[in-house]
């Protein structure tokens, strides 16, 4: 019940495309859902986060869509750029407990 399932494992898009990464969770008590971006040789960095009282959050070209009834949330990257090529992790947490991470999605954006 503590798992967060992430898909796809890898994703290849052309520049300007809209990659979508999906995550699903079981624990309905989770109350914080962040996405992290990781470049090779670096630690993950917080990209955007959402709480379950809203269905969508946008920050620049990044959007989280949240479906509480389906226990799913997704990351959309609008007008993707080669510089967005990285590994993306979703995560979930209950209160101030530790984050439970998904298995990651490796995104490649080709020019």
């Amino acid at each position, binding site marked *: 019940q503590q798992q967060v399932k992430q898909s796809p494992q890898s994703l290849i898009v052309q520049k300007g495309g809209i990659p979508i990464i999906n995550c699903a969770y079981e624990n309905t008590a989770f109350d914080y859902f962040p996405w992290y971006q990781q470049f090779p040789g670096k*630690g*993950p960095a*917080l990209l955007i986060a959402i709480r379950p009282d809203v269905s969508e959050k946008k920050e620049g070209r990044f959007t989280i869509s949240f479906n509480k009834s389906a226990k799913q949330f997704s990351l959309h990257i609008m007008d993707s750029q080669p510089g967005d090529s990285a590994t993306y*992790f979703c995560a979930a947490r209950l209160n*101030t*407990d*530790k984050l439970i*991470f*998904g298995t*990651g999605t490796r995104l490649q954006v080709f020019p």
Partner: protein
Amino acid sequence: GAGVSQSPSNKVTEKGKDVELRCDPISGHTALYWYRQSLGQGLEFLIYFQGNSAPDKSGLPSDRFSAERTGGSVSTLTIQRTQQEDSAVYLCASSYDGSYGYTFGSGTRLTVV
């Protein structure tokens, strides 16, 4: 410092040796976390320190792994009698009080030969 600092950045050790990995969190952050990332894999939780509370050790894979946090600041992750399966990137993160996002360090890449 401005970020989370981890040392060493790379460590190669012989099977059976003990290793110590260090994490310097952001000043004022009360929560500190250790995760492990194996090649091409996700982030596996190891241990979590929050203020003066007893640490959450539920992710430590065996009794060869231990961690301490001195003075509410620097943390050391110790792996005794290292095995080849311990080879991974060990990531440390800190958070202001556990209710905000984490700031990760760049990790220590451990290779056991």
